[in-house]
């Protein structure tokens, strides 16, 4: 008699759990669909249910796939004569080379993996206005990208930094593939005044974007990117 009652309660409980499980899986599945994502609380619920930031879950092959889409736009161009950045060669220098260099320059960086392994060095260098330097590495620990972000610069600081960056690029790669805007003594005085220089090749792109951001000064973003899948 007692065991029959226990069985009854147990089976009701199991049924309830199963129903909840099915509902939960279905609901979380729905939140992942385009219409589910329209719910204002969809992302918050997914985070609460343990779904991490999708950027953290990226694999190196995901990264290759996304970058391949971008690299296809450069496929018809000639290859780069050189891929020099700071003291490194993109596609040749290794993570060990970068680690040694950071040791010499007292760089304090955090490491992680988001598709590719990276080193993120924030507010660690005393170069003018540098707020972040990022190094990215292929699966074989070869350097594939260097990004340098400088922000909160004054117009005169920005002019002298940009002059130096342009001179270095010209020395190693010659005239740019594209330059918009001229660097003068009066540059970077107005909000959103913008300057762009690009060196584009089939296997490499170097790109310097400069813009005056309101209330935060001049931002300079340097991207030195391998376009080879390694």
């Amino acid at each position, binding site marked *: 008699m007692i065991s029959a009652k226990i069985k009854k309660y147990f089976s009701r409980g199991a049924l309830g759990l199963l129903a909840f499980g099915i509902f939960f899986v279905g609901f979380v599945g729905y939140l992942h669909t385009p219409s589910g994502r329209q719910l204002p609380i969809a992302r918050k619920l997914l985070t609460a249910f343990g779904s991490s930031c999708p950027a953290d879950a990226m694999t190196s092959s*995901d990264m290759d796939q996304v970058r391949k889409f*971008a690299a296809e736009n450069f496929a018809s161009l000639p290859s780069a004569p050189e891929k020099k950045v700071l003291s490194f060669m993109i596609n040749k220098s290794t993570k060990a080379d970068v680690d040694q260099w950071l040791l010499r320059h007292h760089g304090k960086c955090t490491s992680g993996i988001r598709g590719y392994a990276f080193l993120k060095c924030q507010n660690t260098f005393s170069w003018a206005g540098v707020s972040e330097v990022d190094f*990215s590495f292929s699966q074989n620990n070869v350097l594939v990208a260097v990004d340098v*972000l400088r922000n909160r610069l004054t117009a005169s600081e920005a002019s002298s930094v940009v002059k130096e960056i342009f001179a270095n690029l010209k020395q190693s790669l010659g005239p740019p593939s594209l330059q918009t805007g001229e660097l003068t003594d009066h540059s970077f005085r107005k909000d*959103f005044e913008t300057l762009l220089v*690009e060196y584009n090749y089939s296997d490499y792109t170097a790109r310097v974007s400069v*813009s005056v951001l309101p209330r935060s000064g001049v931002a300079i973003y340097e991207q030195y990117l391998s376009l080879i899948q390694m």
Partner: protein
Amino acid sequence: MKKMILVSMFVIVGLAMSGAHAQDESTEQSLFDKYGGYPTIKTVVNQAATALLADPITAPFFVVIGKPGHDSVDRLLSCLDLQFSTVFGGPYTYPSVSHFRSAPTQGYACEDMKTAHTGLKITEAAFDRFVTIVAGVLKKNGVSDADINTVAPVIVGLKGQIVGQ
């Protein structure tokens, strides 16, 4: 009587002036039209996407692209087309349904900025990068600094909905 004539004249002149002003406003060319309409917007979006996707630092924010149940590259670009067309004063609203690119008959439903960026943990530095890249791409496509200064604040105004969600 004189007073009535004077008042009537003021009213007529006032109406004429407001009519002329309204006509000025309606004939004023939008930046969307000034820069060649959708073909220019499409080029800007393609070039900005290329710069963001080629970079291992910004590419992870687009990781879900092409995966089942998530954005396809086409949907992302289509929604960006709609957003940039709207920002440039084109005859669109954002968020709404985009029919650009290879959108299905019913179009792509484009999310508001807050929903689209929730959970991505986008930092202020990442946002500055994005704005700098977009400003560079606009300049590359012949948009003057003065006009960048008109449209970029709209994008910068979305910062609160994008950063730290």
